[in-house]
């Protein structure tokens, strides 16, 4: 599904990612954890194709689309990649429903499918709203404008439900959510898990992983993946914090 090799990324000449390797298979859920400033969000943004990042080395191959760097953001999305933003952008004057339909139809056209008309789209999107426990009023508000932090995050997952990506990257989707909202969002994400949809959860805290259980956990620190493991690794991080990560692998030195 996704293969990242030796990825180096800099911003304004300052290296942020310093050789990331990552393989995500079909249907797998991977968590990428790490302290603030470790490069987690940079990785998410580079995958989605945001400008302003210099990729100085390495490659990303997504499905059969070859090198991801050759594709502009809209083509990555049409190829099935989705980023749930850490800070969803407010777009005044563009109704949520108008935006969602434009996005879905742009993707359908790219697949050679006909546009979904307004009536069919409304039926389709109502089911997705229900999944996230959102009322139809959300559809007619300006995109993210005046939404609370929790509403924005729900709206991101709602978009994921509408667009049905093959690879979803959730960037700090848990931040700013109270426990009830977290459960709703996690329920939505779990409902979207399927054997042909992979998910990357980028998160600072292991709390989210209580609700969305990952297959693999990676720790990103100072621009590199320094440790990979199963769910236990997340619990260990919860216990010890990120401080010990600078130390060599525990197996590599005598236990005190």
């Amino acid at each position: 599904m996704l293969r990242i090799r030796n990825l180096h990324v800099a911003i304004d000449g300052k290296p942020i990612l310093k050789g990331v390797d990552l393989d995500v298979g079909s249907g797998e859920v991977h968590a990428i954890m790490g302290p603030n400033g470790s490069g987690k969000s940079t990785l998410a943004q580079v995958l989605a194709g945001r400008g302003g990042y210099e990729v100085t080395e390495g490659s990303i191959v997504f499905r059969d689309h070859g090198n991801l760097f050759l594709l502009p953001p809209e083509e990555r999305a049409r190829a099935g990649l989705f980023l749930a933003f850490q800070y969803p952008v407010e777009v005044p004057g563009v109704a949520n429903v108008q935006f969602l339909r434009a996005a879905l139809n742009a993707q359908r056209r790219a697949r050679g499918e006909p546009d979904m008309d307004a009536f069919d789209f409304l039926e389709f999107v109502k089911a997705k709203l229900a999944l996230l426990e959102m009322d139809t009023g959300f559809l007619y508000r300006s995109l993210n404008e005046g939404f609370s932090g929790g509403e924005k995050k729900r709206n991101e997952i709602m978009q994921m439900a509408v667009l049905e990506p093959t690879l979803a990257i959730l960037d700090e989707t848990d931040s700013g959510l109270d426990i009830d909202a977290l459960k709703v969002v996690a329920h939505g994400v779990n409902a979207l898990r399927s054997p042909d949809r992979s998910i990357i959860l980028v998160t600072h805290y292991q709390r989210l992983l209580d609700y969305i259980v990952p297959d693999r956990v990676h720790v990103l620190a100072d621009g590199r993946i320094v440790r990979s493991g199963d769910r236990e690794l997340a619990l260990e991080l919860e216990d010890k914090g990120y401080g010990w990560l600078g130390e060599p692998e525990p197996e590599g030195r005598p236990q005190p």
Partner: protein
Amino acid sequence: MNATALFDAVDTATVPDWLTGTRKAALDRFMAAGLPDAHAEDWKHTSLQHLAQAELHPPPSTIGEAVCPDVTAYPGHVLLFQNGLLSCHGTYLSNQIAGTLHHLGDTRPVHDYLGHVADANALANLNLALWQDGARLYVPAGERLAMPIFAVYAASAPDAMLHPRTLAVLEREAEAVLVEHYLGQTHRPYWQNAVSEIVLGDGARLTHIMVMEEGPQSTHTRTTAVRMGRDSDYRALHVGLSGLLGRHDLAVMMDDPGGQVRIDAADLAAGRRHADLHLRVDHRAERGTSRITYRGLADGRGQAVFDGRVVVAHGANQTDARQDSKGLLLSRQAEIDVMPRLEIHADDVNCGHGASVGQLDHAALFYLRSRGIGEAEAQRLLIEGFMAGTLGLLDEVHLRAWLMPNLQAALARREAKEHGHG
């Protein structure tokens, strides 16, 4: 523009008889003042000097081949003027209520108000001297016209100088929707110099939509003057879509208490278009409210100018006046000048304004693209979103479906033009 031609034009404009003296006096005032020049404070951003050199002439006084577009495209009553003269009459309303200034009979409101409402600026004087025809709307007290009245002013004669004139009088508690649609049908230069006079009786309500969709080499100047009665309600939407130069002076006078004014304006200045909107709202009595919302968009070498002046006179207490003006720059050579002005001479008022000029939000653009929306469509969505704040009135009078295709076509032309220039 030569003086002899102007005097000849006044001599041939014989209707109605009782106006002949007024016409001549108005032309004398225009000749004395001349076209506005850049030394006048109000005209420092906009020059009409090209009109002084242009060989413009009054249009033929009879209709040649009338181009009667599909009037069914207008969801309401239609009075269509082609090169200054009535060419299509699509209304079952009585002539007393909706007709033309040319066939005014002895309609009292025309005698009372024509030429008395519009501020006697040079351009309004020239129109008063030379107008040939235009829409006349009169709504008797307490009556409400269910459907909008469309006054369409189409220009197809190259190098013509047209002076369309509109008069709308709503008596006490009357209600109507008036749409003025200026439509260019030639790629050659021409000049439409319009005047609209609006008189609202006590408690009357007018929704007034003005759409400027002029030809690419045209000059459009217009003066709109509104006189408001006690507790009356004036809601206006100005939409400037095309034309080489557009200048609109809109002045609202509130001499009586409790008036409510809402003016929304969207101006699109693409290519080399220059779009200038000057508003003036005079609060001269208590309890008046005004809401002004402006969105100007400039692309290519276009320039958008907005001057919003609200004057609260001494004693006009409990005035509530707000202005919100924003500009969106889409190219490096484009320019936007936004000038909100508040002059307050009363003590007990609630007034404010906000103004800003910015560019397309790159974060928003990336956000839309990250969902699969192509760059051009994402830009279009953001531009429509930017303008959306001024288009709400369309929903209230059910005219969104009528106007949006024209607006979207203008945006598509903008896109083609800018991409065409590389």
